[in-house]
């Protein structure tokens, strides 16, 4: 444990190393540490904000869903009403068409039966004349008795 000039050399090295650390080591590391602390603080604040945002968004989504459900119900109600209205209209229209068809058919049938009756009446008259001719043999003048025949015809 002798003392010598190593002491001064060590003294100088001591200050040089401390200076180097102060100049080149300490500032970047402290800067990184401070920045990271800031980042973490920012991150925590952002997480808090995100949490409140999430609550708001959930509330908004619930509202929207409720609104959509309500409008869908409205829509369905309207559609059902319209559908029943259409159905009612269609039923009325169908009734009208059926009635018209029946009327037309009846009218046609009446015309046809009238025509058939006319034809029949013609034939009966001719048959009656022909029969009477056979019975009376030429004694009846067709012309002289035309009025009688017409009268007979209308009675049929």
């Amino acid at each position, binding site marked *: 444990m*002798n003392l*010598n000039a*190593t002491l001064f050399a060590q003294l100088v090295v001591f200050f040089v190393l401390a200076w*180097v650390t102060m100049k080149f080591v300490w500032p970047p590391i402290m800067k990184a*540490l401070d920045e990271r602390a800031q980042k973490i603080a920012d991150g925590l604040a952002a997480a808090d904000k995100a949490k409140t945002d999430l609550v708001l968004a959930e509330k908004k989504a619930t509202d929207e869903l409720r609104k959509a459900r309500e409008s869908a119900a409205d829509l369905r109600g309207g559609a059902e009403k319209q559908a029943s209205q259409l159905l009612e209209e269609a039923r009325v229209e169908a009734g009208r068409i059926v009635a018209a068809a029946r009327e037309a058919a009846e009218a046609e049938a009446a015309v046809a039966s009238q025509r058939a009756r006319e034809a029949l009446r013609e034939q009966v008259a001719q048959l009656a004349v022909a029969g009477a001719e056979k019975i009376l043999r030429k004694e009846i003048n067709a012309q002289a008795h035309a009025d009688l025949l017409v009268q007979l015809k209308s009675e049929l």
Partner: protein
Amino acid sequence: MPIEEAATQAHEAATNAPTAGEYIVHHLTHLNTTGHAQSSIIDFSVINLDTFFYSAALGLLTVFVLWLAARNATSGVPSRFQAAVEFLVEMVADQAKGIIHSEESRKYVAPLALTVFIWIILMNAMDFLPVDMLPSLWQSVTSDHHAYMRVVPTADLNATLGMSIGVLLLCFYYNIKIKGVGGWVHELFTAPFGNHPLLYPINFAMQLIEFAAKTISHGMRLFGNMYAGELLFMLIALMGAAWAGTGTSAALWVGHVLAGSLWAIFHILIVILQAFIFMMLTLVYIGQAHEGH
């Protein structure tokens, strides 16, 4: 003395086999600029080359490793290496913040404390290398089988006192910077006993004693611990060196392994603890320079 006999037997093959005493003395002699052991207690014309080399090399290693971490330091996710250095930096920064209340002073003192802490850990840790490894390497490189070399810089009083005197100079600097020359001189003569002309010499003497005691104990504490640790490693090495194939020497060899392991494990604590104490006292003494009595 069985150890000495065994050691002698073990080295019978070699010429000029050292006795245990010679072995220890040789290991405790510095490689200095004179080439032989320093004769006077204080001789400022001599420099211990080994202490200077190892302390400067380990100091450069310290700042290099710290610089490696600082160069790539990001505020993002840190690598394990960066996190380890940051852990040390934060530890030192927290200690400095608690002791030195001037932010301006901390800009220099905190990095100084960090450097001192890591540097002293590395210098102390030279004890963990086998005591004969670097010296015998040096002897074979120089082809001088009596070349001296000590590898633990903190087991040299010059190194530890050099650092503690550095701290003393910083205390002077901050005393003057914070209190002004007049304020500090005033404090030197009026503290601790009070402002009275009769008390001036006593106060001044007390102040001188305080500075001297702080500085010398600061350096001596580290030196004493590391010197004793190194000496114990050498004594343990002597046990293994006693190997000669006999029963006694085999027992000594086992003793070497056991004692060497135990002491090395315990020494880890001392290495870190002494570095931490030196750093904390550096901060405390400089902190005291900031406060008035």
